[in-house]
């Protein structure tokens, strides 16, 4: 085994170890949330996952972006088949070990090349949309700083990876043409053979150098990318699958019942019913989470809301359909998801550093203001638009519950609405005795 193979093995091993650690960290953070059992209607769940995540059914609602995204996505998945061969070649020092498949191999390599070109072009167009055309949903304030860099970094990296892939093939093809040792003829190169004409003046030694550099760049790039995912919105390429499987299948406008409240209300309405025993405090990361109504912090949200936050692609489709945002209100459902993720990461970092969670005096409410929460009409345009079936409304409602039931913070007009409902059984100041007045005139 050559030195190259050893370095290669070490790299793959280290990257896999890091990746596993990152994924465990993401998993731990998601499980900071409250338990919620989601395993009903399983066949429907598989179907939703196949349609929405695999089939990208909600991406193509916007045809141009949808089409380009499918190219990048297909390219990403399919070209990674090639990684299998790269790994085997890397370990055994072989050249295109799968070429024994003959014509089929040629077909594969040929289609990878077309796809790579497609991905390259699509990413370039995406960059233009973000940075030159400046589509509104990509220039909003909540993307300032890291999120915008993140998006551009991903697109540039994809372009660099595809360039390396095609250049590697071009050098390889040139070497095959010249009958260089080790580079036995294998594969079809519809795209890179064109690029290869630019390499016609290179010596065999420099061709080998180009091929090797690109080969290493490509594989190191992929390994680095893998470990970049957990820090990026790009995590959606993995989480889109479980996240859509765990989609809300109930009617969009249905708000889940708080069973904890039911027991208390029943005992209020009927004194013979025993009030429920106080809940046993939940211990998360060595920290006793107070049992409270609604969501103050990430611990109070369902784990599914936290998975939602990690799955968010920051595409802003939700925000661009949100009536509150369209009319200039502070609320942006995308920002709700980004803030939730950022808070979860913040909590996770403390746990990483101290081995347990210690209250830092902040919460979800430090990031998400009342003004944002009270602007929501619960219209569900956001959940409809989201390509990975994220539900920002659930977080908004849980946070409102905390404001109202724990902090008595609400809007003045809502307080009078509450009073009216409580006293008159209607949101306005009309008593039940007037319920039939409409029949009279």
């Amino acid at each position, binding site marked *: 085994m050559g030195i190259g193979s050893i370095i290669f093995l070490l790299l793959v091993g280290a990257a896999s170890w890091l990746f596993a650690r990152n994924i465990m960290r993401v998993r731990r953070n998601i499980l900071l949330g409250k338990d919620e059992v989601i395993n009903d209607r399983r066949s429907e769940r598989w179907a939703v996952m196949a349609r929405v995540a695999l089939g990208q059914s909600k991406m193509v609602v916007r045809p141009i972006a949808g089409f380009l995204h499918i190219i990048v996505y297909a390219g990403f998945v399919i070209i990674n088949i090639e990684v299998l061969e790269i790994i085997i070649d890397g370990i055994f020092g072989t050249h295109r070990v799968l070429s024994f498949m003959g014509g089929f191999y040629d077909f594969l390599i040929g289609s990878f090349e077309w796809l790579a070109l497609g991905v390259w072009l699509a990413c370039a167009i995406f960059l233009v949309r973000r940075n030159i055309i400046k589509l509104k949903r990509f220039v909003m304030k909540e993307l300032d700083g890291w999120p915008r860099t993140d998006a551009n970094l991903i697109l540039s990296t994809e372009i660099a990876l595809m360039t390396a892939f095609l250049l590697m093939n071009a050098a390889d093809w040139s070497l095959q043409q010249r009958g260089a040792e080790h580079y036995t003829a294998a594969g079809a190169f519809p795209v890179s053979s064109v690029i290869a004409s630019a390499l016609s003046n290179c010596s065999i030694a420099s061709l080998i150098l180009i091929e090797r550099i690109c080969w290493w760049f490509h594989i190191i790039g992929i390994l680095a990318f893998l470990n970049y995912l957990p820090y990026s919105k790009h995590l959606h390429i993995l989480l889109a699958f479980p996240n859509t499987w765990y989609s809300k299948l109930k*009617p*969009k*406008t*249905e*708000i889940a*019942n*708080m069973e904890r*409240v*039911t027991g*208390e*209300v029943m005992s*209020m*309405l009927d004194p013979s019913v025993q009030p429920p025993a106080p809940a046993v405090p939940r211990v998360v990361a060595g920290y006793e989470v107070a049992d409270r109504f*609604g969501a103050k912090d990430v611990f109070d949200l369902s784990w599914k809301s936290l998975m939602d936050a990690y799955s968010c692609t920051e595409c802003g489709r939700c925000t661009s*359909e949100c*009536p*509150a945002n*369209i*009319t*200039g*209100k*502070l*609320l942006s459902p995308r920002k709700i998801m980004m803030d939730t993720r950022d808070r979860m990461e913040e909590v996770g970092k403390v746990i990483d550093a101290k081995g347990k969670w210690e209250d830092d005096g902040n919460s979800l409410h430090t990031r998400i203001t009342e*003004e944002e929460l*009270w*602007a*929501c*009409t*619960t*219209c*569900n*345009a956001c959940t*409809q638009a989201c390509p990975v079936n994220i539900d920002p409304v659930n977080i908004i*409602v849980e946070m409102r*519950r*905390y404001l*109202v*039931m724990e902090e008595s913070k*609400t*809007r003045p*007009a*809502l307080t*009078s*609405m*509450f009073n009216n*409902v*409580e006293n008159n*059984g*209607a*949101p*306005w100041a*009309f008593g*039940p005795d*007037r*319920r*039939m*007045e*409409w*029949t009279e*005139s």
Partner: protein
Amino acid sequence: MSKPMQIRTMAEYAAGGEIPEVLFWVGCAGSFDDRAKKITKAFVRILNAANVKFAVLGQEESCTGDPARRAGNEFLFQMQALTNVTVLNGYGVKRIVTACPHCFNTLKNEYPALGGTYEVMHHTQFINALMKEGRIKVEGGSFKGKRITFHDPCYLGRGNNEYEAPREVLLKLDAALVELKRSKQNGLCCGAGGAQMFKEAEPGKREVNVERSEEALAAEPAVIAAGCPFCNTMLTDGVKHFNKEGEVKVLDIAELIAQAGEL
């Protein structure tokens, strides 16, 4: 329009040992809001014309709790819901129809978890069924050939996947049905949901109902059809904002049918 309405309460049915075909859940807007009361009456005329044996709860009806739950007051919601469920189950109610998509959503989707399971229909679904069964007939009438556009209520459309019933009913008017730019799944909210109806809007550039009404007016309709008392109020205000109330009417589907059929 002059025939007196036939309305009986659930208590009256029970006293006579009778069971109505369906309970008409009037809702708070339908009971107290002057504009929405007209919708209630139009729907009653349709029910009467179709000889539907329906009951109302009258004084025994109370807010479903929808705005309280959406505004985060789960206690108040459950107080309302559990009280209503006791009343409904006490009468053995099986079928409910309501002209309010918010009541519809709450009764249909949220009461089962609190012991109240009923077959719940939105009035556009009910009217559509009556038409299909031939219990009421409406042909064109005064709306024949007029441009009508329909604003999907979020709680009926996106919320409960009902886009067709209101449109099927509207087609019976022989009108020219024009779709809004944002319609069905992509319909834009009127701005009232999530308890917004009962509060000032948060600061912003404009009101949601103005945004939506502008879009509706761009379709140059004679009538903007609504299926929700809150949407109705929001759109009526929005049309006034553009000083178009003389040319463009905002009418509930029940009102359109009652007028067209001269019920």
